[in-house]
């Protein structure tokens, strides 16, 4: 469906993308996971025919996105990272305008956006700029879907959206996948990567790992210790200096420490912080653990 081979892109001195390769199969929900500035947006723009890469090729359904950009534009739904609809037009006016410029009508492809549309209906006459973040994203998704594309490109659709709306949004993506639409989605939230069929972890313009979420986790070879206790900051600085500890990060109210299975973390910590009420637990690795470790390894 989509083949990205050896894409590189620089802005002056800055290398945004550095030899990116991946393939997306028909009907797949493919995630690009990476922090801000990793190059996700540049990659989306190149696939969406908005930018030209310095080198490399992208082909969509057998069509080159550089030479045959009109085909790509007709068959791809692109939702930019920033809300790009008209803020001063109402929900209805936006939908109708984008339907018209994509040579279709709202009615014609209503079945695709049926359930989103129902949620938007009470706000039909509200200006897009006055919608909540979640509603804005739903409207933007409707507009991206309006011409019945075979592939959706969603650049950070859930950034700045509340947790409930994020969940709803991913629910919609699952339904669209069932309709047979190929979806490429990027997100900075690592927990969302579990909802993808396959993910590519991207950082500094390069893909660090690419597999199914469970495949990536299974390859992780360190033991994860979840540490809780008073005075997290002192705990963390101490743990980072201990022998055998490879990495340690704060994870919400606890710390995750990575190392060999024979670390005896509990005993050693009690020695140093007798009053800190420390609890250590070995937990299965998560995709977030994997990604945090991949990122540091790359920086070293």
């Amino acid at each position, binding site marked *: 469906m989509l083949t990205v081979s050896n894409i590189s892109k620089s802005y002056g001195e800055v290398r945004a993308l550095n030899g990116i390769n991946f393939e997306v199969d028909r009907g797949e929900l493919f995630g690009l996971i990476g922090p801000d500035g990793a190059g996700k947006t540049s990659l989306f723009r190149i696939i969406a025919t*908005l*930018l030209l890469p310095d080198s490399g090729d992208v082909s969509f359904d057998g069509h080159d996105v550089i030479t045959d950009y009109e085909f790509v*534009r007709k068959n791809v739904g692109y939702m930019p990272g920033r809300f790009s609809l008209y803020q*001063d*037009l109402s929900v209805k006016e936006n939908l109708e305008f984008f339907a018209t410029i*994509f040579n279709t009508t709202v009615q014609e492809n209503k079945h695709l956006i049926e359930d989103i549309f129902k949620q938007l209906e009470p706000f039909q006459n509200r200006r897009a700029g006055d919608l909540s973040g979640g509603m804005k994203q739903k409207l933007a998704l409707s507009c991206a879907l309006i011409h019945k594309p075979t592939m959706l490109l969603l650049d950070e659709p859930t950034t700045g959206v509340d947790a409930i709306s994020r969940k709803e949004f991913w629910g919609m993506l699952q339904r669209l996948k069932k309709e047979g639409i190929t979806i490429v989605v990027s997100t900075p939230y690592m927990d969302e990567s579990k909802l993808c069929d396959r993910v590519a972890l991207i950082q500094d313009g390069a893909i660090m790992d690419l597999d199914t979420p469970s495949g990536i986790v299974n390859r992780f070879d360190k033991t994860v210790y979840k540490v809780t206790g008073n005075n997290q900051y002192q705990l963390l600085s101490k743990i980072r200096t201990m022998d055998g500890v490879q990495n340690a990060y704060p994870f919400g109210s606890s710390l995750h420490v990575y190392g060999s299975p024979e670390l005896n973390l509990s005993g050693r910590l009690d020695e140093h912080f007798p009053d800190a009420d420390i609890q250590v637990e070995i937990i299965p690795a998560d995709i977030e653990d994997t990604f945090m470790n991949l990122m540091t390894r790359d920086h070293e």
Partner: protein
Amino acid sequence: MKGHVLRAFVKKEFLHIFRDYRTLMVLFGMPIAQVILFGYAITTELRDVKIGVWDMSKDQKSIELISNITSSEFFALNDNVSASHEIEASFKKGRVKAFLVFPNDFGNKLERGTASIQIIADASDPNTANIITNQLTSIIQRWDMLEKSKTLRRAFIDTEVRMHYNPESKSVLLFVPGVITIILMLVSAMLTSISIAREKEMGNMEILLVSPLKPAVVIIGKILPYLMLSLVNALIIMGIGNVVFEVPVNGSFVLLLLECLLFIVVALSLGVFISTKVESQQMALMMSLFALMLPTILLSGFIFPISSMPLPLQWISHAMPPKYFIIIIKAIMLKGVGIAHIWKETLILSLMAVFFIGLSVKNYKSRLE
């Protein structure tokens, strides 16, 4: 199929315009404010200019001449002094714009054939001072002729200056065409360039670009609404000019509208061209102000005559579309001439339109960079 896409685009554009009160203010508040401003405030007409007199002779002749001058609608007597230092004081207090000084024995000297009057004008505003002294001189000379004809009954030559096309030297007759030019330039070029730059800045362009929309549809869709609104604007200004200031349209009204249309197209294509070069609304605004508005006001011959500019500036002014439009519009409105007299200017504007449209289409990018 293309038709309804374009219609949807134009409709969307009108919605943007009518929902943004700032755009509306620029569109419709500006022309009215400008006409009123130029018509009333910035005027070079003389009316009740305050003058002072130092009459050393105080005889029948001098009193007659003074009353002759002050009975005209141009001048009003505001000060009467009897010493030279009082003149200075009067100027400094701003009581008068000019002084007439009559020497001793003015009447007798006049009988003998050589009398002189001194006119002292406040030249801190040199333009006005010039107009005042010219007007005073001409009144005095006319009175002098009349006197001579009474006493000597000799034949004399009456030089009478007539100002054609604007017989009363009404400045508003010159300002209305200028204001139409400025407004059309402003509305057309500035607002289109800003509105396209806004699509870029707000990210809307990203979606427009990935849509199957053709560049020509985007450009025409942007141009059409402003074309209509600019034409409405031109009509409003001509209407105000006609009703409030009695500015006539002596030539063909249809020709005038067609020429307006042509100039609007030039201005719009300049606006589109600017928007292809900038990324933000602010840049678009600055570019239109400095690259278009200032030259329109300063170099088009609207305020400063082109013939009195230094040569390099004259060359620049030849490249200014407004220069030609001002010539055209003055010719049609005031002289009432037809296309035969302004075909050269019309042709130049047409060529400029073709040039800038071509340039904008060439510069319109189908990608983000």
